[in-house]
């Protein structure tokens, strides 16, 4: 009986020691819980001049949001000239209805170049994000989620 116990416990300890390098993989699986609303700004949103352009992928303006460090890349193409800017964004929600939400989006490109938009976000649970409408100075542009 004692021998059996010794064998069993030594096996247990050895298996636990051997699995030490796998523990990090398991810890990554445990989810964390947060009190604030999710960050829906992720991915590429682009505006197009026509449906044909949208099918061909020819955009006039494009935002690429990265939520891990809240950074955004803006690129606009007009008459063959292209402008590219990088910055950090921050947002606040006025209302959040899970698939639709609106609020304010502030993008800071650095050197005093700060743009404030009011945004209207639309998504569906089946398809994911659909569009992001950014309004500034009474003009609004619809940017579509673009894979």
């Amino acid at each position: 009986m004692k021998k059996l116990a010794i064998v069993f416990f030594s096996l247990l300890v050895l298996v636990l020691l051997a699995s030490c390098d796998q523990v990090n993989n398991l810890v990554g699986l445990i989810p964390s819980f947060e009190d604030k609303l999710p960050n829906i700004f992720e991915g590429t949103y682009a505006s197009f001049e026509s449906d044909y352009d949208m099918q061909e992928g020819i955009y006039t303006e494009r935002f690429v949001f990265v939520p891990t460090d809240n950074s955004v890349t803006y690129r606009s193409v007009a008459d063959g000239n292209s402008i590219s800017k990088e910055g950090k964004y921050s947002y606040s929600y006025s209302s959040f209805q899970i698939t639709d939400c609106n609020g304010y989006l502030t993008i800071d490109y650095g050197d005093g170049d700060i743009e404030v938009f009011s945004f209207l976000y639309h998504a569906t649970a089946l398809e994911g994000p659909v569009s992001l409408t950014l309004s500034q100075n009474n003009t609004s542009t619809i940017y579509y989620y673009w894979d």
Partner: protein
Amino acid sequence: MNKLKYILLFGILLMSCLQLFAAGNASASSNAASTMNPADVKLDGVLTAEEANALTNNRMSYDPENYDYTFGLIPPRDLDIHFTTHIYVETAMIHGFPALGGTFDIGIGVDTVTISLYARFLHFFRPMGSDTGNLYVAEEMSEVGLSFKVRAYELGRFNVNLGINTGWYQQWLMHYASNNTYNMVNNGVMLRPEASIGWNWLGRWNMELGFFYQTPLYPAYEGYQAWGVFVKIA
């Protein structure tokens, strides 16, 4: 290891003290309830409290010094006050698809009424009604609250129970871009009336099958209004 043993022992001691305290309180108010046969009572002009109770089926309180007879102060039997814990498994149709979960509750039962604190958890197989994972990859609902149940009808081992649960629910959603984090979106006061039929197997072990309707009251959230079915295992 030793510390754990002591904590466990202390917990058991505390629980048994609580039960004794409750039971003791109930019997102290009975005021010499009688187990005498009424035929044995000798009406010789001097009645003891026990004889008076025997004659009136334990419904009389008698103070011989002040010739004070008061009916109905003594309950005919001791109140059955007991400590209750229950486990439920339940399913509800939310966003058009089933969600599966369970509840654990702990409380006090007095005769046929049970008042308890409960904790509930529901897992959604289709978050927001979709399993594409394009917007939300996971959804859970948790709830803690107060539960009021009454055994409304009883015939042998069969019983019918009604209950109302109120609590604070939280909706946890995992966005596809959120890196394994659940965000709390909708939360508020939930009201859940329920009804069930039960079978009393042994002692206090009552298995029940019932249905409930849950509705978030404030702030109102239509997405979580649902009918559901539960089974009380123990």
